[in-house]
C-alpha cells in the first residue's frame, strides 16, 4: 500500500469532518485530486488555480534570490563604500548570501506561516477548501517590506491584511483590495518610522543609529533610497545602471528592474499576467513623467520648489526608480482586484501609472505612491468595469432600437 492509497483512506476517513479542509489542503498539495467531471464538460483543461499561482511564484523567485544577495550587499556596502565601485564583483558572494538569508528568509517564513495559519483557520471555521490565493500573497509580502522590519510587526500586519483585506469579503476571489498591498498599507500607516526614511532600507542601519546616539564612535549607516534623495532635492549617489540592475537600497525584492522584466516576460508568456495592465501602467507612468518634464521645461516651477527634484527627473527614468515596475508587474495584475474586462484593464493600468507618479512627485512625506495608487484603483476597478459593460449593454439596446424603429 503506497502513500497514495494511505492518503486516500485518510481522506475518506476525514470526509465531512471539521478538519477536512486542512487535511485536503495538504493532500492536494501532494496529489492532484481524483475528482472527475459531473455534468457540464467531461474533460477539463490542465490548469487549475494552484498551477496559476505557482507560475506567479516562479516569476517571483528571481526577485527573491536577488533580494537575498542585495540585503547582504547593501549592509556591507554601507560599511565599506569602496564595494560600490565594482558592484558585480562584490555582489554574488557567500557573505552577502548568508546575511541575506538570515534577514530575508525569516520574513518569508513569518509571512507564509502566519498567513496560511489564518487561511486554514478560516477554511476550517467556514468549512470551505483552503484556496490558493495566499501562496502568491505570502511571497509578495516579504518582497515589498524593508529588510529590517521587526517580525512581530510583519506578523500583525499579515493577520490584519488577510482578515480585513480578504477573509471578511469571503476569501480568495472575493476581495476588493489587493491583500499584499493591504498588508503594506497597514505597516506604513501603523508603523511609519519603520517604513520610510533613510534608516530602514539597509540591514543594521537603525541599530547603528542607536549606537551612535548612545555615544559609540562609529560611522553611521545610511541607506537613503533614490526617491528619498530626489524628494529632498539631494544629489543621487547611484548610477542609472545600478538602478537598472538593482544594486540599490529599497524594499527586499523590488530593486532589480531587469529581473522584474524577466518576471513580466514569464507572466505574459504563460498568459497568467495581463500584458494589458502591465503595459498600460507603464504608459500611464511615462505620460505623467512627460507632463512633469513639460512643466519644468516651461519654467512654471523653479529650482527652489520642493517638487523640482522629482519633476525634473527625465520621464523614462521614473520606470527604473522606486517600485513602479514591481507594482505594475506583480501587484496591478492581480486579477481579482484589477478590472476584469479587457478594455477596463487598459484604463485601470493607465490610471495606476498616472497616479503613481503623481503621488510620487507631490507627496513630500512619502515619496513612493505606487501602492497607494494601486489600492485606489482597486477600489475604482468595479466602477471602470461598470462603464465598460454599459458600452456593451448600450450597443445591445441600440440594436434593438434600430430593429423596432
Amino acid at each position, binding site marked *: 500500500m503506497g502513500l*497514495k492509497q494511505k*492518503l*486516500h483512506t485518510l481522506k475518506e476517513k476525514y470526509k465531512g469532518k471539521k478538519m477536512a479542509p486542512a487535511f485536503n489542503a495538504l493532500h*492536494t*498539495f*501532494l*496529489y*492532484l*485530486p*481524483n*475528482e*472527475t*467531471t*459531473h*455534468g*457540464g*464538460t*467531461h*474533460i*477539463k*483543461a*490542465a*490548469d*487549475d*488555480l*494552484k*498551477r*496559476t499561482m*505557482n*507560475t506567479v511564484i516562479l516569476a517571483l523567485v528571481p526577485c527573491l534570490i536577488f533580494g537575498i544577495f542585495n540585503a547582504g550587499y547593501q549592509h556591507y556596502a554601507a560599511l565599506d563604500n569602496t564595494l560600490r565601485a565594482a558592484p558585480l564583483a562584490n555582489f554574488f558572494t557567500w557573505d552577502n548570501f548568508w546575511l541575506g538569508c538570515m534577514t530575508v528568509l525569516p520574513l518569508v517564513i513569518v509571512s507564509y506561516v502566519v498567513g496560511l495559519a489564518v487561511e486554514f483557520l478560516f477554511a476550517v471555521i467556514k468549512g470551505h*477548501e483552503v*484556496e*490558493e*490565493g495566499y501562496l502568491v500573497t505570502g511571497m509578495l509580502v516579504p518582497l515589498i517590506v524593508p529588510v529590517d522590519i521587526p517580525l512581530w510587526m510583519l506578523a500583525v500586519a499579515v493577520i490584519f491584511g488577510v482578515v480585513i483585506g480578504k477573509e471578511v469579503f*469571503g476569501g*480568495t*476571489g*472575493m476581495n476588493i483590495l489587493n491583500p499584499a498591498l493591504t498588508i503594506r498599507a497597514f505597516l506604513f500607516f501603523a508603523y511609519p518610522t519603520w517604513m520610510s526614511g533613510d534608516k530602514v532600507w539597509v540591514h543594521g542601519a537603525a541599530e547603528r543609529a542607536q549606537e551612535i546616539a548612545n555615544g559609540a564612535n562609529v560611522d553611521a549607516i545610511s541607506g537613503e533610497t533614490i526617491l528619498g534623495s530626489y524628494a529632498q532635492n539631494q544629489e543621487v549617489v547611484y548610477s542609472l545602471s545600478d538602478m537598472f540592475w538593482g544594486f540599490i537600497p529599497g524594499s527586499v525584492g523590488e530593486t532589480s528592474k531587469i529581473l522584474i522584466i524577466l518576471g513580466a516576460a514569464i507572466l505574459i*508568456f*504563460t*498568459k*497568467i499576467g*495581463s500584458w*494589458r495592465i502591465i503595459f498600460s501602467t507603464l504608459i500611464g507612468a511615462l505620460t505623467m513623467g512627460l507632463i512633469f518634464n513639460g512643466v519644468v521645461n516651461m519654467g512654471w516651477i523653479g529650482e527652489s520648489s520642493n517638487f523640482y527634484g522629482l519633476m525634473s527627473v527625465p520621464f523614462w527614468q521614473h520606470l527604473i526608480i522606486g517600485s513602479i515596475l514591481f507594482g505594475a508587474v506583480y501587484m496591478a495584475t492581480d*486579477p*481579482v482586484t*484589477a478590472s*476584469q*474586462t*479587457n478594455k477596463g*484593464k487598459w484604463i485601470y493600468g493607465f490610471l495606476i501609472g498616472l497616479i503613481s507618479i503623481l503621488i510620487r512627485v507631490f507627496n513630500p512625506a512619502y515619496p513612493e505612491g505606487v501602492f497607494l495608487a494601486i489600492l485606489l484603483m482597486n477600489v475604482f476597478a468595479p466602477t471602470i*468595469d461598470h462603464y465598460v*459593460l454599459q458600452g*456593451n*449593454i448600450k450597443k*445591445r*439596446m441600440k*440594436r*434593438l432600437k434600430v*430593429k423596432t424603429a
Partner: protein
Amino acid sequence: MSKDIKIKKGLDIRLKGVAEKTLSNAPRSRTFAIRPSDFHLVKPKMVVKEGGKLKAGDTVFYSKEHEAIKFVSPVSGTLTKIERGAKRVILRIVIEADTQDEYADFGTLDAGTADAEAIKNRLLEAGCWPFIQQRPYAVIADPETAPRDIFISAHATAPLAADYDFTLQGKEKELQAAVTALSKLTEGKIHVGVGKNGKSPLEGLNGVELHKVSGPHPSGNVGTLIGKIAPVNRGETVWTITPQDLVIMGELFLTGKFNAERIIALAGSSVKAPKYYKTKIGSEVSTFIYDSGLNEENVRVISGNVLSGTEISPKGYLGYYDDVVTVIPEGDDYEFFGWNKPIFNKVSASRALTFSWMQPNKKYELDTNTNGEHRAFVVTGNYEEVFPLDIYPLQTLKACMVQDLDQMEALGMYEVAPEDFALTEFICVSKQPHQQIIRNGLDIMYKEIG
C-alpha cells in the same frame, strides 16, 4: 450567395479516437428508451401505458405545457417500463422493439405547395417538433411564436464530432424538403453555416442563406452562427435545428413516416475501432460499442460530445438529439504533484508549464479528471480568448449566479445557450460549472420573464 464567417477566438481540442469514415450497420437494439430529461423543461404527460403497443411514430407522451408538442416512439414495439425517480419524475421510458418496424403513416406532404398551418401541424403530430429548438432560453420552440429567422449549422467543430459532410451524404432530397417546409414557418431567412473547406450536402440547397464558416471551435456552434449574423434581441425568437434532425423531418414530408434512423460517430480514445454506425434514436449504445470494442474497462460513455454531452452508463441509450457517442477513460486517480510539474499530455489554453501550445496538431488522450478543485472565480481575461460572441462571459456568469435578471437581460442572455459556454468551462481555472450556471440562469429567466 454565400457570406464568409471567420472566427478567431476559440480553441480546437484535438482528441485521439476520431471516427474513421466507414459506415457499419449497428445490430438492432432489443430495447429503446426515451429520456424526458433530453427535452429540457418538458413535463411529460403519458399517452401510452406500460404494456401498450406502439408503431414507430406513435405518440408516447406530450408536453404538459404545450399539449400540441408530441413525442413519438422511434421504433415499433411494446412500452415495457416507465422508470420513475424521486417525486415520480419520469427518468426513462423503455420500449421493447419488434423485430421489424411498423410505421405510423402520416401521409406525404408536398412542402412546396402546403401552407404553413399544414406543415406546422404535421411536424407537431408526427413528433418532429421537438427537433426545433428556440432561442431565447434554449428550449423546444413554442409553436405559437413565429421565428424571426432559422439557423442551421452543418459545420461540426466540437471535439470528435460527427462530420456532417459524411453523415448527410445522399440526403439532399430530405434536407431540401425540410428546408422548404421550414421556410414557410418564418418571415425571415434560413441561415445555413457550412465548413469553408469541404463539400457539404447542404451547399446546393435552395431557399437558404449559405455561410461559409472557418476558424477554431466554437465556429461550428449554431450560437456562434447566430451571434455573427444577427444576434437575438429582446422580444425576438429564432429557431435552431441540427442537420441530422432535418433529415428526419424531410423524410416525414416525403414518405409520411417518422424514421428515427441516424448515422452516429462512435469516437474517443477508449474505443478500439472508432467509426460511423447506422442506428436509431434511443438505441442501446452497447449495440455498437461492443461491436467496435473498448481499450479499457474504466471508461466514461457520453451520449454527445465531450463538451456538452450527457454521461450515460455503458448499458445506456442514445440521446434523442445526439449523433455522436464518445468513450473516454475515467480520470478517477490521483496524480503526484500534478499541479506543478510540467505537463505534456493534456490540453491547456495557457503556457504555465503546460506545453500543448508547442504541438498544436498533436492529438490528446484526455480523461475525465477535473485537473484541480472547484474554486471561486479568480483569473480574468482567459474566457474572452475562446469566446467569439460579443458578450462578456465572466460578467454574464456572475449575473446568473446572483440571479440578477436585469443584468442578465442586458448582458445578452437571450442570445446564448449553455453549449456556448462549454469552452470557457473547459479552460476555467476555477473549475466552475459554466454550462450549468447558464442553464439555471436561462431557466429562471424563462420562469420570470418568458
